[in-house]
């Protein structure tokens, strides 16, 4: 299986389980954990598949640091550098 273009990590301590990111993710690669975190919410997590690294989840999430988005460092094939570090312009 090809390596996904992106990945996300979610800080389950900071996440409030609102599910907005789950809803907003285009390839639907986020889900709410069935288990509760210490504060009694179902935090979000990355299913581990298909993340495109689009960054949408980051911007819709109301918590400053709950989500971190990663993207594959581009292979040798030269690609134009991204404007700033933000790719989530749709």
């Amino acid at each position: 299986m090809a390596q996904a273009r992106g990945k996300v990590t979610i800080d389950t301590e900071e996440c409030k389980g609102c599910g907005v990111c789950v809803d907003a993710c285009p390839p639907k690669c986020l889900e709410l954990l069935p288990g509760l975190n210490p504060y009694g919410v179902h935090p979000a997590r990355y299913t581990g598949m298909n993340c495109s690294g689009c960054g949408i989840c980051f911007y819709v999430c109301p918590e400053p640091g709950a989500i971190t988005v990663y993207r594959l460092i581009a292979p040798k094939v030269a690609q134009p550098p991204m404007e700033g570090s933000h790719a989530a312009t749709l």
Partner: protein
Amino acid sequence: MDEYQVIESKSPVFYDKYERKAELQHQTHYCPGCGHGVVHKLIAEAIADMGVQDRTILVTPVGCSVFAYYYFDMGNVQAAHGRAPAVATAVKRSNPESIVIGYQGDGDLAAIGTAEIVHAANRGEKITIFFVNNAIYGMTGGQLAPTTLVGQFSTTSPWGRRPSNEGYPLRMAELLATLEAPVYIERVALCDNKNIMKARKAVRKALELQRDGAGFSFIEILSPCPTIWKMTPQEARKWIEEKMLAVFPLGVFRDRKLAPMADGVPQTTVTKLLGLDKPLEVVTRPMAVKDSQPDLTVKIAGFGGQGVLLLGQILAEMGMREGREVSWLPSYGPEMRSGSAHCHVCLSKERVGSPVIEHPDVLIAMNEPSLHKFSKMVEAHGTILYNNHKLPAGLPPCEAKIYCVPASEIADGLGTTKATNMVMLGALLELTHTLPRETALALLKAKVRNVKLLDVDCQAIDAGMACLRKQLGSSTDAHAHDGELAPCS
């Protein structure tokens, strides 16, 4: 395996750990799915990218976002409910190099703080206001906001907002766009990622404009409040799209450049401004002379426009130049505009007690009503100078001596009724001999720029002196002048 690199993460403009928060210091105090956090992220990201974190100051409101200072690692000033634009105005003017952000909710900005936002915008304060419109009072538990939609329920609109009772939702972006000064006004919404990206751009643009010194910028953000709306975060986002957008259309309402404006105030120093660099020519008399002169209290009364207050001021200033303690107390306020005016002058060797004179030594009555009103108050041994050639009928008896000095007539004869008060000044000088004529002339010379007027004033003083001297007759010879009168100018 190829490597990943971080492309989106917590902004360095946020504190790592929210130490100002009592507990749960790793997450915000906002409800799950609340829009405030998103707005915070957009602001933090723009500030970080612009590299202006050190010089940014956040003015927070009263509302759910009152604690924004928990999160933003920047200068923070917490303002009273609705007053963030006023506070931000002075913060910016006091720190012109800073980037000042006002952050407000709809109750804060569009209800209690309506005046402050309108006027800050209208003055074109070089600040940026982020207006979080969630159509409800969040912090206080869901009361009606000025932006609550028609029919929307709240704890204080239990039958839904009724225009018959609460009027219609207030459109602040449109309202402010009627003003001349703002440079940038846009309304955005946090209903989906596409609109969040638009909001991101707007937030950044507003701040960049401030950084460039452009003027007042205002971003209204339609923002979800799932808790009070009693919706899931997802439903709340839909509700914005389906209900709020119809009432609060998105878009740019203002985007323009202002031509630079000149300030044009001449600059000086405090010392110069307060005249502390110039000594006053005080005519200091030998103490003996000064002590031999009795204290004098004068009440001057007449009609507004007769120079009543000015005459008193001149008298007081003459006294001061002669080394006396003096006070001048005017009648003030509307009565100055419409009718009577009076003032009290005390000249004393010692510190003046009450500046309110109960029984003046001299009353200068510039018109008949003043004579009627105040003649009884004059000291038994006192004097009244009355501006007319004869006394009116029906004057109640009084013990003071009254001299008629037709000052207005005399002044008219000199070409201007305006000199009436100077004729009276002359008469008073002749009467009391407490103050020398030269001091009056020196003072007028210093104050009256117009040479012609100065000349008339001097003639008026002399005419007043002459008029009274005639009436006093030989008795005045006792206080003889020091030789001839010096020419006026």
